[in-house]
Structure formats: C-alpha cells, structure tokens
C-alpha cells in the first residue's frame, strides 16, 4: 500500500535529539524522499510548494508496488550551510533521496554530502552545469535544465538576431557564474563579444539601477541577465525605468512561467526564453496539468516542479525494479539503475540519463505572447525553435566529468 504522507520536517526538527527517527519504526520498506527548496525567498514561486505538490503527484501516479513512500520537505532559505546541515541530518536519520534543490550553491553543497553518505541527490531546480561537469557524482541525477542548455538556446538565438556585444548582470554565486560563463562561450563562439559585467549580491538585491547604469555606459547591444526569478523581474522593470530598452536588447537567460506571470505580458511581451517543459506543450503535459492543478494552488506547474515529477517517478520505477532493500542500501546503485532504464513521463516524454547524470530531453525556445495574443491567464508562450535532446545539452566529453573517463 502506498503511503503519501506529507511530513513537514525542516532542519531535522523533531528527530534532532531523539536519536532514531520515529518513522523508522514503520520498517525498512519505506522510501523517504526529502524535497528541499526555497519556501520563503525569491525562488519560492519557481520551486517551493509546487515542487512538493508535483513530487506527491509522482508518488500517487506511481501507485502501489509493495513499498511505502514518504515525502518530507524543508526550506533551505538559499543558504548552503543550512541546506548541508539539513541534508546531513536527513541522511543520518533514514532519508534516501534529497530532491529539487533549486539554488545552485546549496545543490553543490548537498551534492558532496549525498556522495559521502551514498544516498541519492535528484536535482531539478539548480541550473549550474557543473553538477554534471567537474562536480559530477555517481549519486546524482540532474534532471530539468542547466546553464549550458539555456545558453545554447536563448543565447545563440539572440546573437543570431544581431545581438553581438553583451554586458552581463550576474547573480554573484555558483548559478550566475555558470550561466554567465556558458552564455559568454556561446556568444564568443558565434563571433560576438562580452564587453563587461557586474555581479550583484544574491539574495539581498532588490534595486538594480546601479548595475543597469553600468550596463548602459558599456555601450553593449545586449543586456544579459544571468539571474533568476524575482531578481530577473526586478532587473527588467528597472531597465525600463532607466530607458535601457531603447538602446539595448534584454536577454533574460533564465526565465520561467511564474516570472513571466509576475512581470505581466505588457512588460514581458516579445522576450525570448528557454524551457524544457511548458504545461500547454502537448496532450500529456496538459493531462498532467489537469491532474495536479488542484494541489498546485490552481497554477499550472513550472519547469522545476515538473522536473520533480519526472525524476521522482523514474526513481521509484528504478526502486521497484531493483528492490527496496538494495535501493536503500546504496544510492549509487539506485542512480546506476536509473541510468540503465529509459525514462518516460507525462512532463518530458521519453528520454534517458547519461553516464554523467545528465537527463536528456529536448529544449524549447519560447517567445512571450502579447496581451492580444493571449487567450487565458496562463496562455503566455508561443513555441519557437525546438532543440533535439541529443543537441540540447553539453556533449558528454566536454563536461570534464571524471565519471565519464573511467
């Protein structure tokens, strides 16, 4: 019988002092998945409660296969030390999988611990391509997207349309650095140039005007926003206030459905962005959206929660295939089994996981609709180009992942 209990457990509360967690009494036939993300900060709308809802949907859709699944959740507040200490405690006390981790700095910290403790790190929300590059791990699957995918799709499309000189405004941590680096590489490879950049403190910046003035003074044709979520929305609004859009093209390198919604079509129309998932993509995505809408505050899923759905479902299939005891005993074995099996889910369709832990699926370039084109509150995108799964991500050999050479 499948159990779908939502235990609210942050920073290892409740089980802190008591040694063994109470839940362990339910027997070793329970798989525990801890969804850790930003429940209160700038990434709440992108991941947050949505990722928990979609994880639960995955458990429900997986059904009953002779073992129980428990979903826990915690807020890492975008702090690597907090995330690391929650993960350490979770793993020490019987949690098998940490999922989501939308903040790259936290993801990299937890990545180390999952490997050390031989547990599983399923990542949907983090962007840094280093997770399957220099810092790749046999215990990790990186599912939804990464900075390379974004750079290749959005970055290249903007260079092709004449945006040859770039100024970056970058979130000053692992994610921003990776996105700036990967986009810069594509810009230069296409014959463009990067004329400058400014890095803003994350997550404490709300007024971007000082950085926008630097961008304006640089004379670049494109303002590359290596930022995410609320930060990107604030930066775009600020750019309009200071009249940047008259001389510069704005490239929001990571932008998702909730961001477009909060920016509004009036300000956002015409922006180009890349996502591997959109609720209105095909019949299967629409069916999933239909199923989960009520749980998900009546919003269609964003790509990070959708990734949680796909990867948790696939993990559970692997567990069923190899047996619960074996899956609990070794995170690396469980991830190896996930890599050996082809994936298929309603959010991403058929796909596969590479040796470096990278999940492979197509990426889509969207254009934000004008208010006139939009036919519903969440009808926000027009599909542009599609990059095939094999082309969308960084080639296996170029990542520098030590797992690949062996």
């Amino acid at each position: 019988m499948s159990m779908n209990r939502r235990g609210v457990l942050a920073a290892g509360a409740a089980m802190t002092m008591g040694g063994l967690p109470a839940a362990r009494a339910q027997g070793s036939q329970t798989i525990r998945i801890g969804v850790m993300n930003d429940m209160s900060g700038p990434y709440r709308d992108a991941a947050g409660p949505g990722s928990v809802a979609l994880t639960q949907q995955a458990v429900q859709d997986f059904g009953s296969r002779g073992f129980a699944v428990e979903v826990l959740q915690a807020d890492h507040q975008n702090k690597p030390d907090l995330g690391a200490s929650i993960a350490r405690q979770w793993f020490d006390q019987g949690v098998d999988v940490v999922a989501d981790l939308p903040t790259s700095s936290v993801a990299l910290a937890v990545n180390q611990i999952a490997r050390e403790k031989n547990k599983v790190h399923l990542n949907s929300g983090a962007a840094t391509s280093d997770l399957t590059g220099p810092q790749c791990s046999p215990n990790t699957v990186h599912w939804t997207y990464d900075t390379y995918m974004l750079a290749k799709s959005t970055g290249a499309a903007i260079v092709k349309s004449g945006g040859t000189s770039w100024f970056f405004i970058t979130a000053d941590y692992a994610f921003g650095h990776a996105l700036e680096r990967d986009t810069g590489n594509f810009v230069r490879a296409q014959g463009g140039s990067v004329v400058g950049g400014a890095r803003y403190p994350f997550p404490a910046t709300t007024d971007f005007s000082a950085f926008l003035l630097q961008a304006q003074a640089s004379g670049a044709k494109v303002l590359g926003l290596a930022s995410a979520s609320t930060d990107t929305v604030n930066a775009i609004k600020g750019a309009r206030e200071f009249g940047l859009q008259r001389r510069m093209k704005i490239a929001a390198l990571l932008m998702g459905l909730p961001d477009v919604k909060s920016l509004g079509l009036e300000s956002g129309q015409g922006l180009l962005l890349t996502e591997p998932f959109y609720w209105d993509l095909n019949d299967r995505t629409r069916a999933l959206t239909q199923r989960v809408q009520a749980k998900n505050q009546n919003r269609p899923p964003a790509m990070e929660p959708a990734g949680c759905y796909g990867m948790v479902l696939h993990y559970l299939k692997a567990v069923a295939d190899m047996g619960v005891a074996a899956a609990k005993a070794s995170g690396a074995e469980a991830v190896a089994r996930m890599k050996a099996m082809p994936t298929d889910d309603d959010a991403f369709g058929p796909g596969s996981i590479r040796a470096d832990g990278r999940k492979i699926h197509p990426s889509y370039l969207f254009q934000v609709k004008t208010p006139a084109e939009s036919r519903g509150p969440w009808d926000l995108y027009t599909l542009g180009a599609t990059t095939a799964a094999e082309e969308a991500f960084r080639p296996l050999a170029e990542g520098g992942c030590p797992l690949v050479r062996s």
Partner: protein
Amino acid sequence: MADTTSITAAAIPDVAQEAGGVWGFSRAQLVGLGILLVFLVVAPFVLYPVFLMKLYCFALFACAFNLLIGYVGLLSFGHAAYFGMGGYLAGHAAKVWGLTPELSIIIGGVTAGLLGVLAGWIAIRRQGIYFAMITLALAQMVYFFCVQAPFTGGEDGIQAIPRGNLFGVIPLDRDLSMYWVVAAVFLAGFLLVHRIIHSPYGQVLKSIRENEPRATSLGYRTDDYKLLAFILSATLAGVAGATKSIVFGIATLTDVHWSMSGEVVLMTLVGGLGTIFGPVVGAAVIVTMQNYLAEMGAWVTVIQGVIFVACVLAFRRGLIGELAALLKVKL
C-alpha cells in the same frame, strides 16, 4: 552614574567568594563543572553527535563573547565577524593548503585575533552604545569583504572542507571521533576563559567594568586592558567558528552576518551575563530551540525576539544568574 545600573552588575548576584574552592572555582561551580564533564562524556551516546558539536561550537562562541560583556562590560554587536572569519580561514587552510584540522583551527583563531586587534583598536575609543554600534558597523564591513573576496567563495561559501586527520594520524570522518575533538576544544576554551577571569589581569578587567575612571586613577592603562580582552575574545570566537567549519565541512556568509552577532548576544543574555556557565546554558537553549522549532520558519526569529524582550524587561540575570541568586551561590 547613580541612576543607571551597569549592564552586568544587575546580572551578577552579590555573593562573596566562597571558601574551599579549587583553581578559582567556587564549590557550586565545581558541581556545575562536574555536571558539564559528565554531560560531555555521556551525551554522544544518547544524542545526535552532530547536533552536540554544533552546540559546543556556539557555547564556546558565547563564552568568548561573555568574556567581553560579562567581565569588561563592553557589548560587542559584531562578534560574528571573528566567528565567521575564523571559519573561513580554517576552511581555506584545511581545503586549499591541506593542513591538519588542529592547525587549521589555530589559523582560524589567530586570524580572528588579528582582526580583533584592528577592530578593537578602533572600537575601544568609544564606550557603551557607541561601542556597540561601531563593532556592528565594523562587522558589517567584514561581511561585505567576505561577500566579495575570492577565497570565501561569496554566496557559495567554502564547500567540501575535509575533516582530515588529527595531527595527521587520526581520521575524523566518523562523527564520534570528531566529537571528542570538538568537546576537547570547547572544554579547553571554557577553562581558559575561567582562568583569564580569575587571574590578576581579570581582576583589573572587573575593576574597569565597575569604575573605569577609578581604575585609570590607580594607574592602570585601561585601554590596553580592554584591547587585550577584545583580542582574546575575538580569538576564542575565531576558534569556535573554525571548529564549526571543520565539523560541517562548510564555511559561509551566515556565520559573518549580523544576525549571528545578535544570536550570540541572545545566548549569553539568556544564560546570564557575567556567569561562567550562563553562556553554555544559553547556547544550549537557543541551539536546541532552533533545531526543534526550525519547521516553524521565520517564527523562530519572532520567538528569539520575544526572548530578547522578556530577558531585558524581566529576566536580566538570565537562567544561571537567577539560579545562582536563588541558591545564593556563584555560578
């Protein structure tokens, strides 16, 4: 001044030094020390060792802070700078330079001490609330430095710091091995603070706290005494931060942020300013509360604020101070 009470005089019960003490400990303090020692030995077999290690790091941090507020009467609102900087340097030493954990911790402490020389030299020019505001501002400067300095890794922090081998021989990967090291560091720091307070130097500090002009008129160069206390306090705070980053394998901005400075004030206030066990108990209360109540998110901040207000309005002696007053002993 007649109409104001010094911040710690209110907290310290007026009890004459008892006879029959050992090494400057009163009898009641010896009992307390015994309980502490038993706890140190038994606890890791009952409670989650990582949690205990965190607790000891904060307890040592609070002891270091208490040295300044409890015995010199200086409220530093920027102690996170030394705690966090100690953590960063220890992390850097262990990870990049590949040093052993004990050397890394020493480097963390020394760096924090050097920072204390600089900050203390500037801050002791003013007293009271100005001292608090200046230390806060200087700590914020350190925070911004850490945000930008390349070696701290900015928002990412220094990750994957190895615990390494103690003296290059004893591996600390197992939590229990690490535990004994942390317990030893904590105990050594705790005893050192006690030793400082009961030295002739400590007596001069207390006289400065009670009446600085008088100490000056007796020929003491009070600024030198205060500066040395500041440096010692900063060094110990650095050792605490360094130990924490070795235990958790990560050093981040959280530990240099002003809210960490506020937390250590709270720990010491809750336990009892100017008592030797107060900071330890206060740290235990606050760290436990943060762990148990973490699921409540920002309510933890609210509860901390309420405790602050309650302590200031009604409970100025803190837990140990009240206990000491009740038992009419010195703790």
